[in-house]
């Protein structure tokens, strides 16, 4: 048994430690997580004007302030007995506000906080054992997901293309939040009983534009197909099987075009999701598509019971 500790767990908001016990087979047999900072927010609200909470509590997190703000506003609605009087338009504004933060947080989480793990040199050592194909895939992973601060053997690599593009979307969505909520992080829209701002027609048009531009990022970088096509064939597919088939057929099509020239670039249709699906998973990449190598990330999880693994429901892609 080996004790492996990750501390600090970087690339998150705040400070965190993970303690694990790893068996000789490389299986994690025990784990604890620890928050390493105490800020006493609950206490700082006591004996003060309760209305402050909608602007105060969000300062617990600079990445997801909106949900804390809305939660506080909901609690205040209850406290003042006005929960059933909050106008529908105010609820819509709350939802739009939260949704914008939700999308921006996806950009941050996937590309800035988690994505850099795919550019870990440990994966280079696995991939580059497999000739031109392995080298090409490593080139894509490191060229897309390298974080801003990195080093290897005295060399600094430029931040990855997907990483940088996701930061642009993050910034754009935050601008959208600021448009209706003053600024971001720590927007000022939420208030007991509703919200403090009613958007103009121009604001609404601009918000649509912000989100449309982000949808183009999702097409060009994330999926490699328009989001509408993806949703139509997965989320709205007639059955789980047809959704799986759509993904696999798409991957097969991409592979047919790329295996000769080892071009796995965004431009050749390899969005980040297809690249990750094909080369991240042993089951998809090696077993189903016959690829010579994968990162075997589907083998590193803790889903012992195959029946609990559903399409997209647990972060993996299909029924075992």
């Amino acid at each position, binding site marked *: 048994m080996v004790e492996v500790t990750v501390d600090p767990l970087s690339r998150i908001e705040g400070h965190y430690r993970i303690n694990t016990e790893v068996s000789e087979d490389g299986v994690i047999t025990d784990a604890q997580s620890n928050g390493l900072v105490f800020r006493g927010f609950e206490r700082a609200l006591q004996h003060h004007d309760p209305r402050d909470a909608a602007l105060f509590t969000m300062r617990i997190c600079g990445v997801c302030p909106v949900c804390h703000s809305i939660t506080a506003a909901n609690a*205040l609605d209850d406290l003042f007995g006005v929960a059933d009087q909050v106008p529908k338009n105010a609820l819509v504004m709350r939802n739009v506000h939260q949704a914008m933060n939700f999308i921006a947080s996806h950009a941050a989480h996937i590309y800035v906080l988690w994505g850099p793990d795919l550019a870990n040199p440990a994966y280079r050592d696995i991939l580059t054992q497999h000739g031109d194909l392995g080298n090409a895939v490593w080139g894509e992973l490191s060229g897309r997901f390298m974080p801003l601060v990195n080093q290897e053997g005295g060399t600094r690599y430029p931040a990855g293309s997907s990483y940088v593009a996701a930061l642009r979307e993050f910034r754009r969505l935050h601008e959208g939040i600021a448009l209706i909520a003053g600024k971001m992080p720590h927007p000022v829209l939420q208030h007991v009983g509703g919200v403090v701002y009613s958007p103009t027609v121009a604001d609404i048009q601009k918000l649509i534009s912000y989100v449309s531009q982000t949808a183009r990022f999702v097409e060009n970088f994330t999926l490699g197909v328009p989001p509408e096509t993806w949703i139509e064939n997965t989320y709205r597919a007639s059955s789980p099987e047809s959704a799986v088939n759509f993904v696999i057929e798409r991957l097969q099509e991409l592979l047919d075009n790329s295996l000769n020239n080892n071009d796995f670039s965004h431009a050749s249709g390899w969005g980040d999701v297809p690249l990750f699906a094909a080369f991240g998973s042993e089951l998809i990449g090696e077993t189903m598509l016959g690829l010579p190598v994968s990162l075997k990330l589907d083998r590193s999880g803790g889903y012992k019971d195959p029946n609990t693994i559903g399409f997209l429901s647990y972060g993996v892609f299909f029924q075992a």
Partner: protein
Amino acid sequence: MGGSGVNNEGLLEEFKNLDFIKMDRRTFIKAVGALGASLFLQTYKSDIAKAFNGLPETKVLWLHGVMDSGCSISMLDGENPDILEFLQLFNLNLLYHEVLMMQQGIFVDGQLANTSDLNSEVLLEEILENERGYVLIAEGAIANGPHGSGKYMVLGGKIYKDVFERAARNASVIVAIGQCATNSGVNAAESEISDLMDHRGVAFTLEDPSKGIVDLLGIDTPVVNINGCPAHPDWVFLTIGAIALGKIRVPDDLPEVLDRWYRPKVFYPPDHTVHDNCPRRGFYDRGEFETTVGGPKCLWKLGCKGPYSHADCALRHWNGHVNFCPQAGSPCIGCVQPGFPDSTRPFYVEIEDAGIVNTNLDTIAGVAIAGGLIAAGAHALRRTVLRKPEEKEGTTEESALERTGGEK
């Protein structure tokens, strides 16, 4: 020195079209001092995206203490320059940043594993051991509690106060970004346990200059404060840029360019508040005030702290320069002021009236319900209260000036 553009119109014209990158240091300092309000920065920024070669590398160590990473996020929201342009333009070598770095801290059976390429704790040790004269960007407060131990923040098995001390001693300048770092901010908010937690700002804890962590630790590295919750990316990038370019010499120029809270006067002008350029200012001048949220008029009676808050928010605006708090319908909560949040809460109460409605929930509920309805627009119950213009003590620029004491 009045810091007022009004008295320096000739000077203002003279500086208006200067590019700060090309400006010599003396002119820069003169301009920063003379223009007071942020007019200067409109030119200060204009040519910033131009390629700049030959600038020596400046190393930057970015540490996160007791905070919410909101200032890192705010820096990611910066544009013209954005964070990548900022680092390139000023030839900054960002050595360590907990949110933006590849590495994690990894221990195997309690021992550090791998090298600094793969282990952030090895990297941090190497930096603290070997690097000198870097810019330390301090984001977040420093935990001193419980009982002076600093154990309310432990990172990589080390007490953060100790890490900060080592990093701060060997820095050429500490740039504290955001209210948690500058004044401890919400971490120091009054509560039954605030003394026990004892989260400290770098040079101040709230308005107390004797409670900064640097004093406690006997560190004499110069400190520049970029206040705000969060700090505006322009304020941070342009201050550090000016230091990297040698426009602001540390420590020689600091007494001239900083106010007594160590804030660059150019962004936190002693003679200028958020109120001065507020789009609702016309309503204030006519004595037309909102008493519930959601309307277009002055938010003074809803507790707006704009008249007390020395920052260029109303000129600069946030996130692509699209908006700022009072424009979006919320009273300014004074997040750049040293005493924030205690000196500015209750957020929705005029400073003179603070404490009165605190105990009367019925009054607040009445205001709040109407506010919510008006905010929503459609079926709003609009309750407009017109008032005669009132001269309030404490709203004039003169007394606002006195509150921050930013002038010599």
